């Protein structure tokens, strides 16, 4: 009897699921993006205006590319990789499709940023990405516990032994290269030179490793560690630093002496997206100043939308001003597009870093 009833319940649950699955036949935009880039109220407003539902998957650069690589560019209608991660993977795997710029209202973008991004994401004369959100990588420092930290190399100083952190990802390699007087971007063209440079950076990081509490992975993981004092100095995104700064004024985001790293996250179309119209609508909708301001506030970063900064809250502006004096802004190192093949070199250095002891 028991079994019969259990079976019946299972069957009904199953049927209900199937019905629920098919009921949603409305037009849909499948968006692969970063945390906080599509806040709830913005999505709701978009759905109200256009009738298009937005299905959001959160991810990071590597996972975005690997998902698209696994599907050959299927499964999503719009993705948001960083601008330097478009040309290389496109050449290797063909996972994006060109953007039809005529469908975008280009005056919504900050002109110089749009041009720079277009330049970086152009292959064979076709543009594959337009800018959305930008920000920097620098140092988050608990100025009370670690007052001396001013550059990436200081993370390896004895003063913060066991209490520093960075991500075992490519920004760390680039950052430490600059901090040690090298110019990795200049070496992009020459694979051999780049490999040699990376080996040097790897050795430096290897040395630094004993100082590191852990290689952080997720933003919240690092922020929690900084809040609890397990970590006092870390290489991280500006936005996290400003968020903590609002909670605890001792914790500050600092533009390192050797320069913050500037990144731009973009909009790009996956090769097998099914709803390009919705994707263009979402881009245009998002670049409207009032929407862009909302998104920027949620993400804690800046937007490539023209005029949105006038609408943003004062607090973030103040924090930015504190972290970035004029010289520091000029010193921001913007990532150029990564040529295909370099990531393998970096990958191995990172693997060694993570595995070696």
């Amino acid at each position: 009897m028991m079994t019969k009833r259990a079976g019946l319940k299972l069957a009904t649950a199953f049927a209900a699921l199937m019905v629920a699955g098919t009921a949603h036949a409305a037009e849909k935009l499948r968006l692969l993006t970063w945390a906080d880039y599509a806040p709830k109220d913005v999505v709701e407003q978009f759905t109200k205006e256009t009738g298009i539902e937005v299905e959001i998957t959160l991810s990071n650069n590597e996972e975005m590319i690997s998902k698209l690589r696994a599907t050959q560019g299927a499964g999503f209608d719009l993705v948001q990789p960083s601008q330097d991660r478009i040309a290389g993977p496109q050449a290797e795997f063909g996972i994006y499709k060109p953007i039809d710029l005529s469908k975008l209202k280009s005056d919504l973008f900050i002109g110089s940023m749009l041009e720079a991004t277009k330049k970086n994401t152009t292959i064979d004369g076709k543009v594959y990405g337009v800018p959305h959100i930008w920000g920097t990588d620098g140092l988050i420092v608990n100025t009370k516990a670690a007052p001396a930290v001013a550059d990436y190399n200081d993370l390896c100083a004895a003063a913060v032994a066991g209490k520093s952190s960075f991500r075992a990802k490519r920004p760390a390699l680039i950052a430490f290269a600059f901090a040690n007087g090298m110019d990795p971007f200049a070496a992009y063209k020459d694979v051999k030179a780049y490999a040699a440079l990376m080996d040097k950076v790897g050795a430096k990081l290897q040395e630094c490793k004993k100082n590191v509490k852990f290689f952080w992975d997720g933003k919240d993981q690092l922020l929690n560690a900084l809040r609890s004092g397990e970590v006092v100095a870390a290489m991280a995104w500006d936005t996290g630093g400003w968020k903590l700064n609002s909670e605890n004024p001792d914790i500050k985001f600092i533009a390192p002496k050797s320069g913050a790293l500037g990144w731009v996250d973009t909009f790009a179309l996956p090769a097998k997206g099914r709803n390009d119209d919705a994707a263009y609508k979402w881009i245009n909708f998002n670049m409207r100043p009032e929407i862009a301001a909302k998104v920027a506030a949620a993400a804690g970063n800046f937007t490539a939308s023209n005029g949105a900064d006038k609408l943003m809250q004062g607090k973030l502006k103040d924090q930015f001003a504190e972290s970035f004096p004029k010289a520091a802004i000029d010193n921001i190192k913007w990532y150029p597009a990564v040529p295909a093949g370099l990531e393998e070199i970096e990958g191995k250095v990172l693997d060694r870093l993570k595995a070696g002891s």
Partner: protein
Amino acid sequence: MKPAQRLTLFLLMAPAILWLGLLIILPHVEILILSFSERVAPRVYQFGLGNYLEFFTEPLYWRTFARTAIMSILVTACTLVLAFPIALYIARVAQGRLKAMLLLMCLLPFWVSELVRTLGWMILLRETGVVSYVLQSIGLASQPVELLYNDGAVILGLVYGGLLFMIVPLANALESLEPSVVEAGFDLGGSRWTVLRRIVIPHAMPGIVAGSIIVFMLTVGNFATPVLLGGKNGLWFTEQIYAQFITRFNWPQGAAFGMLLLMLSSIIVWAGLRLSGQSLGTTLRQA
């Protein structure tokens, strides 16, 4: 066989053929092929041993591999030592309801997701965690102690995860030992130790082999526990495979690593069976 019967048999075999063919055999053929393809230029691949050469020439990779293998063997041995007294107790001392309850209590934690168990260990071991807190409050430590993110934590987590798969086959094997045989051992003048060594352990051998093989396989193929509990110095080989596939987009290299891991686990399983003279079928049934 009549044609109708043959058709029925074929129809009944179809799901199994589809299952084994599409989900097991062909995918393995695919990664075998993939592991032999070398990238020469964007979107251009050719047949070659490059991915395997890479493994043997890059110390990072084979060291991770060796480390994973050695630690898995260590974990298996620890699990065996920890589990044996428990299995012996369940099989030979506990009676009736106590026995059923002890066994059930062993089973329960293992039906809960591995991630939940790992989360528990993280809460216990981390610097701001329970153990550190208790040590401080009873005065055994003056400042927070970090017990997480090291090899010890990984071994602990893996041993914990393997216990059930050791206890059940061991208890099954020990159960079948005639009490009179043990009594005869004592009667003929054996000490506790000699009886254990000469009678009980040899009898439990099939269970020991079955348990060890299963624990080894689960350990070597584990992913979440080493990633979550391990520190900045330790990489598990499955992490390498994952990294090649997911963060490096280098499927051929990941496929080669996969084949190597498959070979490692097959060889160790085979060697274990060979050394102890057991067969896979009976071993798995034992478990």
